[in-house]
């Protein structure tokens, strides 16, 4: 009895130590971000003298005001919003249509087509970004939202996820509808899509975040400053910027550029973390 109590006491003590270590790590994870946000709220001339400290004193919103007034950052943000939204919508449409065909319809050559599509999962972006660049150059389409959007829609992970999802939907739900002589598209639209809302949400979130954070393709495709996405734009102002006189403004740009993804993360955290688990079961 006393032995058990002692074990329990030890274990509780052990739990506390682990929790403290975890909190320590969490602080390490947060401190860089907090410091950057604090700097974005300080005047540039104060930062010229010292970047130390975790309190925004003296406090100013001037960096953000300047950002909105004179810099190109807002237009980069708009580009990112357009590209990420278009990519998300297109990916959801083509992936759910194709996933439904693979999961529910029979057609000659189904197995081989599915294998060929899955094989695309192994093709990294770096293997195709050079030929893609020459193609879009031939078409004269660089520095457009379409060029930034289309290549990513071809990535088959969405088709794979939607196929898996539709396969798990009980067939009875569809059979009832087929008795009513409903067309396939109606069945798909009225029954399957509403059922797959959670899967679509997860796929949509991941596509949006990927699109927002995409770096290599927009870096080579968008060469005009006004066509940069925020990710490429923020990359373009780096290079010894730590010595710059406008340190506060640069930090404000970074914070401003991260607001959309941070908001999405705060709202949809459950979906995003669960989505990772969903992808792992393949």
């Amino acid at each position, binding site marked *: 009895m006393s032995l058990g109590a002692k074990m329990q006491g030890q274990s509780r003590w052990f739990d506390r130590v682990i929790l403290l270590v975890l909190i320590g790590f969490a602080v390490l994870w947060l401190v860089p971000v907090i410091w950057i946000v604090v700097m974005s709220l300080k005047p540039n001339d104060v930062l010229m003298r010292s970047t130390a400290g975790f309190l925004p004193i003296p406090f100013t919103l001037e960096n953000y005001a300047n950002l909105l007034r004179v810099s190109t950052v807002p237009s980069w943000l708009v580009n990112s919003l357009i590209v990420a939204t278009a990519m998300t919508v297109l990916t959801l449409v083509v992936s759910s249509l194709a996933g439904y065909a693979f999961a529910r319809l029979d057609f000659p050559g189904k197995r081989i087509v599915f294998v060929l599509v899955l094989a695309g999962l*192994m093709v990294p972006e*770096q293997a195709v970004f050079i030929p893609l660049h020459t193609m879009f150059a031939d078409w004269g389409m660089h520095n457009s939202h379409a060029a930034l959007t289309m290549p990513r829609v071809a990535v088959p992970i969405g088709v794979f996820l939607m196929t898996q999802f539709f396969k798990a939907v009980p067939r009875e739900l569809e059979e009832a509808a087929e008795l009513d002589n409903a067309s396939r598209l109606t069945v798909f639209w009225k029954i399957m899509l509403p059922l797959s809302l959670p899967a679509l949400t997860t796929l949509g979130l991941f596509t949006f975040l990927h699109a927002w954070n995409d770096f290599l393709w927009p870096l080579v495709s968008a060469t005009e400053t006004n066509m940069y996405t925020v990710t490429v734009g923020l990359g373009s102002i*780096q290079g010894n910027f730590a010595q710059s006189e406008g340190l506060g403004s640069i930090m404000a740009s970074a914070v401003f550029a991260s607001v959309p993804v941070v908001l999405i993360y705060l709202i949809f955290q459950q979906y995003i973390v669960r989505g990772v688990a969903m992808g*792992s079961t393949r």
Partner: protein
Amino acid sequence: MTITTTATPTLAEHPSVVTGRSSAWTAYLFLAPFLLVYLIFLVYPLFKGFWISLHDWELVGGYREYIGFLNYEDLWYDPLFWRTVRNTLTFVALTVPAMTVLALALALGVNRHTRTHGVLRGIFFASSVFSVSVVTLVWQMVLNGDRGLIAHFLRSLGMAPVDFLGHSFWAMPSLVVTTLWWAVGLPMALFLAGLQQIPGELYEAAELDNASRWTVLTKITLPAIRRTVMLVVVLQIVLQFQVFGQALLMTQGGPGDRTRTLVQYIYHTAFRDWQVGYASAMALLLFALMFLASMLQLYIGRRED
């Protein structure tokens, strides 16, 4: 798109029988949008990339000459290519084990159903949503030798600050630490998913035996998630092999090519030196290596089943 399946009762009872010609056409119509994009923007470029790699091909000006496999031969004698391969492998060798251990440790730590642990989980995953250029901006400030966070800290301890990113030894570990901070969320979430699939009975049995925590970890938990461990390791090797943004933005490959990575070299060869043919040869070699890694992952998955 008004293709209807003729719904006689017998067909409706056996939906798999509905395989007439019209149903096949329906399927192709459903597939068409994706297949079109897939063929144009993934399959065709892959073959075109190979075609380009057989040429002395310049990005601008239109000069191109068929040279067979000469680009691949040249790679063999290119010291900078081998340098970047070695740098990339060093980065992978430092990042992957550290990432796996850290992610597993964090997952084991936060795998509890309290509010505090939920918040901690959220914090460790949060940095993954930042884009690479935000992460490099944050960490260039943190690591800056003069005005950086670590420099302030070292000074307050009375130590001399270090210019980490310009330092011949510290530059590479700096990129590794940045990457750990940025990307630990994904493997941590994978481990959490693996941990939550372990049947509770296993732990109840251990509790009855009064097994120590260490025994439970090494005899029950780790064996139960060994598939996840393999998955994370292979996934991380493939992902970290593609390291690019961190090196490009934080060290520009320096000091003295010490952190120049393979993808960075491909990018520079194609878009700074305009040698698209040579860059394509490297890109396809990178693809071949990653293809092998994916095959390895499939093989491991099969064997475990």
